[in-house]
């Protein structure tokens, strides 16, 4: 068994030409049972030197006098190359008390001097023992020193290098060399307590085990067992170390005979402190592991733990550095990309973008300027607006905005028109003037952005124009326009509504439409009809008709065309209604309907008689009843006449009222006209025993003579019809300032006051049967009124019941 331990046998070279002495010395020394010596014997100086060189004994016991020289020569040879020799040699001499010799021996570095005469077992053992003690102490010190050097080297290495692999390799290298071991490895645990050899130094011919995965059931079961507590595993011989078969088998794989294993504990990980193992092996033969070996390994495991910590720190620093670096790179790339994009954006922007210095010189201007003015951007750099000859007004506005910006520090905005190059018209811009500050917070440059708002402006103008047109339309349209909100409040009323209904705007806006402007009788219906449209716009009634109340309290019927007003998001915000006042139209329609109804009756009645009479005659059933047949013929004839008159009057009235008749006006004499009328009526009047009395001055009148005669005959005819026999009918004419008044007066039954106006309406006699009884058509007075109105005059009736009536009309001298 080899052992580097210091308590092993000391090899002593005894150089003495006396065999007896050599044997004596050996016997003496062997008597010291506390020590163990090996002996080399040399009889001559030469032989001694050979042994010295070949065997390197620990101690030399040399006789001063040798046959081939002095023992001191051996000391000289031993101390060669050493400045201050310190030899573990004891010189034996027969010359007791020779101080010269002692001095010389000590100078050569001998450890001791002994006179042969003083040599006893005790003295020799003591002297040699002292030297051995010294030697061992020296060696131990040397070993410790070397060990410290190794540790220092490793520590230095750790401080110089941050790579754990590098440090690990250096450590295993140093340990193996220092301990002269066959193999030194660092074994690192995985999280499942399996492990791998991450560093190895191996002495040939032993094969490398680097990166070998090792798995020992022992480790996972107890999470590293005693290693976790920092225990050291020492096995001078694995076969006597009482190992488990599994463990033994694993060690044999290397192969291993003696092993020394210390744990590497992670100082910062309390849950899993066992990081790995530092193992050194002798592969071939058993080996006693010295305390110093163990200490060395322990110290280096601590160094490894430090290295581990350092490497982790370094790695995390590296990661963080790398991360930082990557982020810086990414950010830089991004910034660069952004800058490129911004540049491209600015350069290709349709907006004109420029930067000015404080002297208003262009530092930058984008290419939009070329499209606007046809001047390349480069031409602007270093120049002011004025130097570039821009329109004075635009310069003044810009300078004003910049002045305000510099004074207040607040971004400015303004709009400006700008003539485009090549007579392309005028562009409109919204200009933003933005300050840019230097590091001291002073405005260093001014950014100006000209956004083209031409299309917006044109739209705005178009919108304004459209609004103006709409407003004009709403203001001038002869239709009612009313805007209501969702609460039925009036939001808009056009001037025609105000004008036609007599309201002021202030009396309408904001008022509740229904309660203020709709007759009470219709409010409920309208609420019912429109109530649900807000929730269901499909139920909205586009067309509606209802009455509204004027300021004077009259009711006017309006036909509405309604529209729902919506926001852009389709939310209903109210209604807009356009209405036509159809009150007069309805009245006309009603009158027309009534007229048609009456006219139809008036036409059908004589037609019925005619058809009936002629039909009976034609059927032949009256062939034997000549009287009846004659009566039928009379009926037919009479009602034919009646029908003719009726048709004539209808057509005449229609012509008059549709202004299709042109009056044939001429100067005539009233007396002559009246004379003609009286002559026409005289026979009829006489038949009814009525006297016509006229009092007509001669007066020139500018009128349609025939129509005037027609009127007077009609009035006189009526007067005669409704006069009692033997009574009188008066025809009077009176000239006043501007007109001539004609009067026809009778003493008949009179006209009820309620009928004084309606008798001039068509088919509106006081008594409908009058027309039949009196042979009238019911249209005479309507025709008279129309003729008078055509002349610019008016007609009216006055009456006292049962005393008589007077119908008067005026004809102006001139229209």
């Amino acid at each position: 068994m080899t052992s580097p331990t210091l308590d092993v046998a000391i090899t002593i070279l005894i150089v003495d030409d006396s065999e007896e002495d050599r044997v004596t010395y050996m016997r003496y020394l062997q008597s010291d049972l506390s020590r163990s010596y090996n002996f080399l014997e040399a009889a001559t100086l030469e032989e001694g030197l050979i042994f010295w060189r070949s065997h390197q004994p620990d101690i030399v016991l040399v006789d001063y006098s040798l046959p081939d020289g002095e023992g001191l020569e051996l000391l000289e040879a031993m101390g060669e190359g050493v400045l201050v020799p310190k030899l573990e040699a004891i010189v034996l001499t027969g010359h007791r008390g020779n101080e010269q010799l002692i001095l010389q021996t000590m100078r050569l570095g001998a450890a001791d001097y002994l006179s042969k005469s003083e040599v006893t077992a005790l003295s020799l053992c003591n002297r040699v023992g002292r030297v051995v003690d010294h030697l061992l102490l020296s060696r131990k010190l040397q070993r410790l020193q070397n060990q410290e050097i190794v540790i220092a080297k490793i520590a230095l290495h750790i401080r110089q290098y941050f790579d754990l692999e590098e440090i690990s390799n250096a450590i295993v290298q140093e340990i193996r060399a220092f301990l002269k071991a066959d193999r030194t490895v660092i074994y690192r645990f995985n999280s499942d307590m399996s492990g791998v050899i991450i560093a190895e130094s191996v002495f040939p011919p032993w094969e490398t085990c680097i990166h070998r995965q090792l798995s020992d059931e022992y480790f996972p079961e107890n999470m590293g067992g005693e290693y976790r507590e920092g225990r050291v595993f020492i096995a001078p011989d694995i076969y006597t170390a009482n190992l488990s078969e599994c463990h033994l088998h694993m060690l044999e794989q290397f192969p291993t005979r003696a092993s020394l294993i210390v744990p590497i504990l992670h100082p910062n990980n309390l849950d899993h402190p066992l990081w790995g193992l530092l193992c050194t092996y002798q592969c071939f033969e058993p080996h006693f592991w010295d305390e110093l070996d163990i200490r060395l390994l322990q110290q280096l495991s601590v160094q490894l733990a430090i290295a581990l910590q350092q490497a982790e720190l370094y790695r995390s620093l590296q990661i963080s550095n790398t991360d930082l670096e990557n982020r810086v790179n990414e950010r830089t790339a991004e910034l660069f990309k952004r800058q490129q994009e911004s540049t491209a954006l600015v350069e290709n922007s349709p907006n004109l973008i420029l930067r000015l210095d404080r002297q208003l010189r262009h530092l930058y201007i984008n290419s939009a300027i070329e499209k606007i003015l046809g001047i390349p951007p480069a031409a602007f750099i270093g120049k002011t607006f004025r130097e570039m000859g821009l329109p004075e007004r635009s310069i003044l506005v810009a300078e004003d905005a910049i002045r305000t910006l510099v004074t207040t520090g607040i971004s400015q905005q303004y709009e400006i028109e700008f003539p485009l190059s090549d007579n392309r018209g005028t562009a409109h811009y919204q200009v933003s003037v933005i300050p840019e500050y230097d590091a001291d917070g002073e405005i260093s440059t001014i950014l100006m952005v000209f956004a083209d708002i031409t299309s917006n402006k044109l739209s705005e103008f178009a919108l304004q124009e459209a609004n103006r047109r709409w407003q004009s339309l709403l203001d001038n349209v002869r239709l009612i326009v009313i805007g209501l909100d969702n609460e039925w409040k009036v939001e808009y009323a056009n001037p025609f509504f105000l004008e036609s209904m007599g309201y002021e705007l202030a009396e309408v806006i904001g008022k509740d439409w229904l309660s203020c402007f709709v007759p009470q009788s219709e409010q409920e219906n309208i609420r019912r009809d429109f109530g649900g449209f807000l929730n269901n716009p499909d139920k909205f009634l586009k067309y509606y008709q209802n009455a509204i109340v004027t300021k004077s309290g009259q009711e006017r019927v309006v036909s509405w065309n309604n529209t729902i007003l919506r926001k852009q998001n389709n939310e209903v915000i109210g209604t807009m209604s356009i209405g036509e006042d159809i009150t007069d139209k309805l009245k006309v329609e009603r009158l027309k309907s009534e007229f048609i109804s009456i006219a139809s009756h008036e036409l059908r009645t004589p037609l019925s008689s005619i058809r009936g009479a002629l039909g009976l005659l034609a059927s032949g059933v009256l062939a034997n009843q000549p009287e009846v047949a004659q009566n039928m013929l009379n009926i037919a004839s009479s009602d034919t006449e009646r029908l003719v008159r009726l048709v004539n009057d209808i057509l005449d009235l229609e012509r008059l009222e549709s202004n299709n008749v042109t009056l044939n006006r001429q100067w005539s004499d009233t007396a002559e006209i009246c004379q003609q009328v009286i002559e026409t009526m005289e026979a009829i009047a006489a038949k009814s025993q009525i006297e016509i009395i006229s009092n007509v001055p001669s007066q020139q009148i500018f009128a349609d003579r025939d129509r005037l005669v027609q009127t007077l005959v009609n009035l006189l005819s009526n007067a005669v019809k409704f006069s009692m026999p033997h009574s009188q009918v008066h025809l009077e004419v009176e000239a006043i300032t501007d007109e001539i008044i004609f009067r026809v007066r009778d003493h008949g039954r009179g006209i009820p006051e309620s009928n004084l106006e309606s008798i001039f309406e068509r088919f509106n006699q006081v008594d409908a049967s009058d027309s039949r009884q009196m042979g009238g058509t019911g249209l005479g007075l309507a025709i008279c009124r129309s003729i008078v109105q055509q002349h610019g005059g008016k007609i009216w009736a006055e009456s006292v019941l049962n005393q008589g009536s007077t119908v008067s009309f005026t004809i102006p001298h001139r229209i």
Partner: protein
Amino acid sequence: MENTSSKTIVLIDDEEYICQIVKTCVEVFSNWKIITARSAKEGLAAIAITHPDAILLDMLMPNMDGFAVLKRLKASTKSVDIPIVLLTARADLAEAHKIAELGVQGVIVKPFHPTQITSELSQILNW
């Protein structure tokens, strides 16, 4: 079909000629008896006296028109069941819904055909 020989009709029309012609037609083309009245007042009196089988009524008459007469007839238990046929120039009253609304049996529109008036009446009155 009922025996029509004893049918009596009252005609109310302010037009004398119409009365004469209708009377002649009825007398010539049927064996019904016809009483003519020239006003509503006269007609209502005739109805009250004779209690006719049917009434022929003109609508547009002075003083009291046909609508007022209808109202009177419908208001009286004595006359409410007497069938009424309108003889009018108002063609619009011949529409089915108006006939139902007025509560009359039918409408003969003027100008009527003299040889067909009795057959029209027969058809309307289901005689």
